[in-house]
């Protein structure tokens, strides 16, 4: 056997420029995850998976290939709702129940979703693509993947990576928007401690929310239904093993599968389009306008409220839980060292998760 025959059996001759470019993207994502610790739980599997998915002759993205099979989990809308089940089991809706006004702020922070939707359409994206790009500004990975899969699966790689990258950048994106839109006095507003929420309220909440939201917006049922189911596991107090399993083992497993499955859409032929740069740009605008929407709505509410709210908590309507709430806490303490906004910001934060799922449901019905 001569050397050229051996070389032919390897994949070296089949590597395209596109593959090389995607390898580079894979390595950049790995660098961001490992060195910069940007969303490492997602960007590390996505980075490595991107490299695997672009191996020529690798048999991993063919019809029976491993990553292709994982991708069925997204295609048949199994994995994102499962992530929501786990998120529900990890979420304490108490701060939102204690201060239901924060529900509005969670809705206000969907502003960017609609701005980016209209802008995307103006830039020549189809309506289906535009809503998938807009939803990036909800700062919710599973919802973005869920909606893009239903509407515009060919851009799923770009919307998912864009959503997760900007989520990692929440601490960089939120503070300048806060400073631009609020005065020092507003940032110093101290909010009264939240009232304690009873166990009964916490059990009733997921039930009422399920009945109300799923009947009102049936298309949001897989996401909202699973979110609330997970939350009931947590709050019921009788299935601690299941709640713990959802918070830890299941969450870890679905995170792994989700990260690798996305890579099916990170093949060179799918990912490398001029559109991708536009999608990243519009995704960032969507984030910024969502933060701005939450803050402006809080300021508007302050015109009518006797007990003022700190408008910064509106920024936490960006649902990246609990990162946006943490950023608000840090900025709040910078303005006033004795201001503790973390729990107040958790209200809009968890409301934002519901708000984004509802926005996705509305897109599925109307677009």
């Amino acid at each position: 056997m001569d050397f050229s025959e051996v070389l032919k059996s390897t994949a070296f001759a089949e590597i395209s420029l596109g593959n090389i470019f995607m390898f580079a993207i894979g390595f950049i994502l790995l660098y961001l995850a490992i060195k910069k610790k940007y969303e490492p739980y997602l960007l590390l599997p996505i980075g490595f998976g991107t490299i695997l998915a672009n191996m020529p002759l690798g048999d991993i993205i063919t019809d029976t290939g491993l990553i292709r099979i994982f991708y069925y989990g997204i295609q048949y809308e199994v994995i994102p709702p499962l992530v929501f089940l786990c998120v529900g089991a990890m979420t304490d809706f108490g701060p939102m129940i204690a201060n239901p006004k924060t529900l509005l702020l969670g809705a206000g922070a969907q502003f960017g979703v609609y701005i980016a939707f209209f802008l995307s359409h103006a830039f020549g994206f189809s309506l289906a693509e535009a809503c998938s790009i807009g939803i990036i500004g909800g700062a919710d990975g599973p919802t973005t993947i869920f909606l893009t899969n239903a509407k515009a699966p060919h851009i799923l790689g770009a919307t998912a990576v864009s959503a997760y990258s900007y989520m990692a950048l929440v601490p960089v994106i939120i503070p300048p928007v806060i400073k631009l839109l609020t005065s020092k006095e507003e940032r110093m507003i101290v909010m009264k401690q939240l009232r304690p929420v009873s166990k009964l309220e916490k059990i009733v909440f997921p039930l009422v929310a399920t009945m109300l939201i799923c009947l009102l917006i049936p298309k949001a049922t897989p996401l909202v239904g699973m979110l609330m189911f997970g939350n009931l596991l947590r709050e019921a107090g009788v299935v601690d093993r299941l709640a713990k399993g959802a918070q830890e083992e299941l969450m870890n497993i679905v995170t792994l599968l989700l990260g690798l499955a996305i890579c099916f859409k990170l093949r060179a032929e799918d990912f490398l389009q001029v559109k991708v740069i536009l999608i990243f740009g519009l995704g960032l605008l969507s984030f910024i306008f969502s933060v701005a929407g939450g803050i402006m709505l809080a300021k508007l509410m302050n015109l009518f409220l006797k007990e003022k709210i700190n408008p910064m908590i509106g920024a936490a309507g960006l649902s990246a839980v609990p990162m946006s709430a943490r950023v608000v806490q840090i900025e709040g303490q910078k303005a006033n060292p004795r201001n503790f906004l973390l729990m107040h910001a958790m209200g809009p934060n968890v409301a934002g998760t519901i708000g984004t799922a509802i926005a996705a449901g509305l897109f599925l019905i109307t677009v």
Partner: protein
Amino acid sequence: MALEQVLLPMVGKILKVNINVGDSVNEDDTIMTFESMKLEMPLMANIKGVVKEIKVQAGQTVEADQVVAVIEY
């Protein structure tokens, strides 16, 4: 002399106690650091005075509005 109670504003875990009984503290001195939802935050003295009592230690989980220290002023 009056007593001022320092409360933890939210449920959290005390990471570090920076004061001892008998220490003088100024308003806004960081007397403890605590962690809630994986975020580390400083807890400041709300008044200038002398530490009369410390009710928690590092590693302890504390409920919202629980007294963590008492300052005499």
